[in-house]
């Protein structure tokens, strides 16, 4: 489960702001194992950030899927609350997280906001509940930190 979280970079973030309507977007995310937190960056004007400001509860899934055999499907879904953190990603992450990651995030973000002036924000997800599945087996872990 931890392996899924640390190795996968693309996750799907679900928010629910206006009238409790769900909204899903693919995001580039980083898992900080030491603190058991998830981080991602986004444009402050984006729908996901506006949703989070209305309702901080979020859900994030990272997974791998096998087209041939459903029993090889594997994934992790986390649920928790999102908060905007000050001072950028590098400051927020535990010290031993690679600086290279931060550089990569910069590059990724530059593409995501291409051509549109925007203010970047870093978001931390405080994980409350984790669900892991591999094939038909589910494991659910709740934690209150």
């Amino acid at each position, binding site marked *: 489960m931890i392996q899924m979280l640390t190795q996968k970079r*693309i996750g*799907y*973030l*679900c*928010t*629910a702001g206006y*009238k*409790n*309507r*769900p*909204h*899903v*977007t*693919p995001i580039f995310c980083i898992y900080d194992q030491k603190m058991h937190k998830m981080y991602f960056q986004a444009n402050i004007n984006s729908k996901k950030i506006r949703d989070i400001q209305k*309702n901080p*509860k*979020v*859900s*994030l*899934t990272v*997974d791998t*899927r096998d*087209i*041939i*055999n*459903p*029993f090889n*499907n594997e*994934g992790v*879904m986390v*649920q928790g609350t999102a908060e905007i953190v000050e001072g950028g990603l590098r400051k927020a992450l535990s010290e031993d997280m690679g600086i290279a990651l931060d550089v990569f995030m910069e590059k*990724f973000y530059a*593409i*995501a*906001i*291409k*051509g549109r002036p925007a203010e970047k924000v870093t978001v931390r997800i405080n994980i409350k509940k984790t669900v892991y599945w591999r094939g*038909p087996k589910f494991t659910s872990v709740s934690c209150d930190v």
Partner: protein
Amino acid sequence: MTREMKWAYEIIAETLPPFKWLPPVQNFLAQLMLMYGSAILLFYYFHVPEHMLLYAFAGTFAVAAWSIFLLQLAPSIRGVNIPLEGHEKEFLAKYRMLLFHPRRYELYLGIVFFFIITGYLLLGSGGLMQLWFGPTLHPVLLFFVLVFTFDVSYRVAVAVWVSALAIWRSLWLKRYIERRESMEYIPHTGLRNLRRLDLYSASFVLVSIPIFPTIWSDKVFTAGLLFVDLFVLLSSIGSVFLLRRAPWLPPDIYDLVYNSKFAHVGTSDESMTPHVVPTSYVFDGMDLFFMSSVVSKKLKNIKANDRVAFIIDSRDSENLLNNKAVLFTGRAKVLGLFDVLSHPLKVYTARKLFMGKYPEYVRKYAAEKKNLPKAWQLTPMISRVLVDVQPEKIVYWRKAEPMILPM
């Protein structure tokens, strides 16, 4: 030259008082009263058998109802606004031109019908005139019958003309739409309005029902009217069907949706806690479908809040600019037994699409069914249900640029 093209009957209805002043319902009642009133007077004066009063009521009712039907339909067809380009735009203009042609094709068709019907009534009839009016027929009554026959003929002709052109129009429009490239698309509302008009044209058939008892004793007439009804019904429904199958989304989105194997579906429960999980899915051109175990969290969420977000994306690890994603947001509906019975075609299509898209999955599930937890066994309706997502808004990202398609 911007002269508005109209049907002959519309021009009469617009110039003739008191009908030109009346709103639809009053107009219908006025026409009915005028026609039926004159029928009563004539029948009384010429001692026509009493059962004819009943027949005449059915006939005049249908004619008056068809009049309103024409007066409502014509401006709706002229007013339908679909932003089209190039060939498609020219084609739609051609369709309208033909439908409301200044040469009045619908009137000629009506005259042809009139001659066929009167010819048969007076010369070849199986005794329908005798049944209606007795052995002798006064010329004034004959004149009334001829006027009435013309009214019927003209209205039948318009219905035939409208529905024949509708299916022709939908067939070509669909072909043109299929030739679109990458990001071109047609707003869904445009096609939906056309489909509604086609359904409305089919209501001609309903109005014709009261006429059947009048002509029931004559096999040729009955068969003729049945044939016309069937023609109008089949071409209108056929036209609706063709438009439903026209690919109105940009081909780029179709490629993404048809080529991707998995989607992520987001739901939210009553405490506003979002939930997102991967799922397999199929797309029937209009709705998205996915299968869910009856005990899953997403199904519980959908039952509490039917709003869902459904994302399908493709990622290129070499070049992030090639990433594409399409987000469908809308309402989800769990298809229960009742829906399976009321929308059998939809459910059948969805199941067939699943079989075609995930043959390995279906085989694997079937082979290992015994060893699976109950929630994963593919027993339709009992442990796995089909969920229908009806999109209300579609957002498409290509090269990090969003494009919003409202429904």
